[in-house]
């Protein structure tokens, strides 16, 4: 199908992009990699008056270190995230999860910032950023602000970004020394996760000292499995992990759709959390 007509702007800098968005008001839509937006336009599920293409803003791309923080430009493509040595070293969970996003061609265009701003709870990366305790930096006419991942995902397809704000970078505390695993369950290779579990585990003396678990597609937003995280502290073997993850679906409100029922998703959340934690802890 064919997108509806729209005006097009291609700012060369973040400042110009923010100015353009501010002037356009609510009817503007940011085009990052376009891998979610273009299908929506083609199915005529979105009708923006203005599309602001931030694909030619060099400052939005790339990965750098800032002390104990890894900084990833919002327009860094999935492909670049997967292959970036800094990401692999300091945020292996993100690299691993990003490698499961869609397919290679989509990963060449799709961007980390675009995925997060789209705020699709079925997307793999929001839960990962949540688990990693990331921060998202937005720039708007009133300047820059930093939003904790916990506060960023507001509702289904809705982020904390104002219409005139642009997501410019993602800041992740380096997760050196943490074990990690992204367990994605999907009916066919290309489809969205029915449920995904992003697990980070810090071990101390053979026991889990701390676990951070992000859940994909278990509600209107990505979620942390906080009850399971707490219960996992101190777990030292498969049995204790299995008992701890019984609470993995607590506080979730998964959707009913053609892929699964809420009940099944809750069951999967428990099974997959166990598998993800065991793998992350090297106990599998």
């Amino acid at each position: 199908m064919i997108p509806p007509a729209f005006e097009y702007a291609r700012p060369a800098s973040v400042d110009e992009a923010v100015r353009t968005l501010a002037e356009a008001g609510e009817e503007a839509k940011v085009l990052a990699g376009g891998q979610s937006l273009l299908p929506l336009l083609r199915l005529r599920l979105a009708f923006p008056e203005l599309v602001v293409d931030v694909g030619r803003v060099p400052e939005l791309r790339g990965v750098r270190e800032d002390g104990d923080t890894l900084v990833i430009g919002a327009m860094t493509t999935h492909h670049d995230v997967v292959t970036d040595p800094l990401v692999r070293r300091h945020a292996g969970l993100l690299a691993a999860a990003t490698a499961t996003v869609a397919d290679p061609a989509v990963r060449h265009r799709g961007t980390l910032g675009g995925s997060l701003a789209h705020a699709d709870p079925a997307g793999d990366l929001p839960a990962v950023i949540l688990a990693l305790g990331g921060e998202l930096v937005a720039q708007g006419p009133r300047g820059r602000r930093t939003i904790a991942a916990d506060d960023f995902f507001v509702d289904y397809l809705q982020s904390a970004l104002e219409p005139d704000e642009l997501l410019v970078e993602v800041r992740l505390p380096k997760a050196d020394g943490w074990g990690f695993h992204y367990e994605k369950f999907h009916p066919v290779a290309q489809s969205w996760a029915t449920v995904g579990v992003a697990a980070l585990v810090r071990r101390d003396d053979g026991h889990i000292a701390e676990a951070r678990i992000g859940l994909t597609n278990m509600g209107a937003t990505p979620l942390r499995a906080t009850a399971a995280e707490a219960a996992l502290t101190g777990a030292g073997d498969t049995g204790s992990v299995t008992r701890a993850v019984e609470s993995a679906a607590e506080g979730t409100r998964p959707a009913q759709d053609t892929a699964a029922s809420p009940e099944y998703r809750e069951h999967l959340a428990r099974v997959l959390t166990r598998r993800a934690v065991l793998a992350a802890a090297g106990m599998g």
Partner: protein
Amino acid sequence: MTDQAVASEVGRARPRKEDARLITGQTNWTDNISVNGMLHLAILRSPMAHARIERVDVSPALERPGVVAAFSGRDLDGLGSLPCAWPVTEDIVLPDHPPIALDEVRHAGDPVAVVVARDRYAAADALEAIEVDYEPLPPVLDLEAALAEGSPLVHSDKGTNRSYVWPLKTGEDFDSVRRRAEVTVKRRYVHQRLIPNAMEPRAVVVTPLAASGEYTLYSSTQIPHILRIMMAVVTGIPEHKLRVIAPDVGGGFGSKLQVYGEEAIALAVARRVGRPVKWTESRSEGYLATHHGRGMIQDVEIAAMRDGRLLGLKVDLLTDMGAYLMLVTPGIPILGAFMYPAIYKMDSYDFTCTGVFTTRTPTDAYRGAGRPEATYAIERIMDELAAEVDLDPVELRRRNWIRHEEFPYTTIAGLTYDSGNYEAATGKAIALFEYDKLRAEQADRNARGDTVRLGIGVSTYTEMCGLAPSRVLGDLRYAAGGWEAATIRMLPTGKVEVVTGTSPHGQGHVTSWSQIAADVLGVPFEDVEVVHGDTKAAPQGMDTYGSRSLVVGGAAVHHAAQKVVAKARKIAAHLLEASEQDLDFADGVFSVKGSPEARKTIQEVAFETFTSHDLPDGMEPTINAEHLVDPDNFSYPHGTHLCAVEVDTETGRTKIRSYVCVDDVGRVVNPMIVEGQVHGGLAQGIAQALFEEAVYDEEGNLVTGTMADYLVPSAADLPEFVTERTETPATSNPLGVKGVGEAGTIASTPAVVNAIVDALRPLGVHDVRMPCTPERVWRAVREARS
């Protein structure tokens, strides 16, 4: 030239002639066609499953830039009803099917209005300006509820949602065998609706010559010849003024074996505006507009003795016609009717099929068409019976199948199977599969209570294909014959044109037909070209479906080539001053017995015929020949498929661990092409077992409305297949071939589901509804445990 002996072409794994263009992008898909003045047609479709159309106003669309015309159904008068060529019973309820809705829409996607504009973007935009008022009517979605008293009606003027009831009762009365049976097993199986998903969406281009009233219709179709006749009837354009071309066609799987409303609409609009018109469906549009497959509830009962010997089979079908009867909609389950007894001997068969209207996209042929449904039912219930009488499923089959020395064998359903060797195929498959080893591993996992269970599924299928003897089709009330045509033209330079009435869309007919002709004529493979898919260039044909092309069309090529040789022999004899009986013909060379230096190649004869300077008296100056084949029987491929699955009982996920199939498709013209057909068939059959389903909500909206929701498997979702063959030649055609297009699809679905149930049977599971999604498997395990 042909001095060296030519190796036999038939049987060679020739890489395809078709490929050169396809791998370089030099393609001619219908959507690639662009001609001066061409307009793009877009169709506004019903967003509701069922509604009365109160008002359509297309005039706002005309205000949009680039729009040339817009029409409602009422505006495009003069179009007849779309045809159903297979009214299976005398009293069938056969509703009108306007190509574009007039008063009522009966499924989401029913066409309501059209626009034509200078480009596709303008046409898409203009659709949004059309105003339609709908008065919603109740949807009809459940097959059993649709037949109940007081159900809302899809076609209110017909007074019923029942289209037809088609019975077949043979042998002993089923009630009587049920009484003497020691064991009966009764099951309900459900075939979900499937969307065929040929990779090329449908497209239509019409180029009119207004002054002379001539029209060329390009369509992404499997059936240019049938389409021409039907479009002449629907549009009133005289048949001889209508040329139909199937250019490169990107797959069909039955979905392009159809006479579609869009073809009639494009012709009508081109006639009205006097300009060329193109329509191309988008994928999501096609999910509503292109016919679906399967959609059936099967109540199956099998009666047997304790030793496993079958006594009889009873089958009751409810089949989902969708909103209208399209080209062969009602006949699809009837193609399966004869196949439920499959390869087994029994005394009684009792079959009834009821066709039911619903407010969904019409169903029609999808790869296998009736036979996958039949094979699924019998092969699934054979496994249930095996469990009931405590026999290995292979052993149960062995006790009941037709032994190879019993052929030809007339089955309880009345078909005469000409040949087959089920023992050989099964033996080979079991050896390749390492059946005993896997059974041992299965027992071990079961004993350990492993969360990942191993299951083994068997499917010993046969099918009827090579459609079809015209007389049989007549007896079944099908409106046309089942013959096929071929013409061979020997060109003056010795090159050969084979004109075929089949209409390939990926099968490789150009390559295979070249091999057949090259063999008979003794000319190089490279010297043969195949002409197809254009009613002007290949005027006679019955097209491609039902694994018929090689069996009927290939046989026609063989016969036509033999006629060419016979004619050439007369001329060669004259030129060599010998009698016909004294000529040998081998590798394309006529030579005089005893004096091999006296020789003429058939290509030399072609040139001498062209000059006609020295032909026998009274001889027509041509060695070209035509042949039409009307087969006297179907062909019956068979085989044994074995599937091993690992089922994760925690998540319900099924993983195919190995898949072995041994197919007997008779003699093989091109083993590489045959293997490719099997691979593709397996993928589609496995997809039905595990992944695909057209899901509707309670309002009748298609929920799996895009490729993001309808799960077509990718390379990462399918295993490597081990494919092997046995070769028991068919006796019903000179090539000994049986057809292979549908075999993999027919066989594989029950093999996979049998494997899943086999894995879970120790846990108390007896069935999982298709597609066997992880959640369904998980639920089945949970329910069995509780």
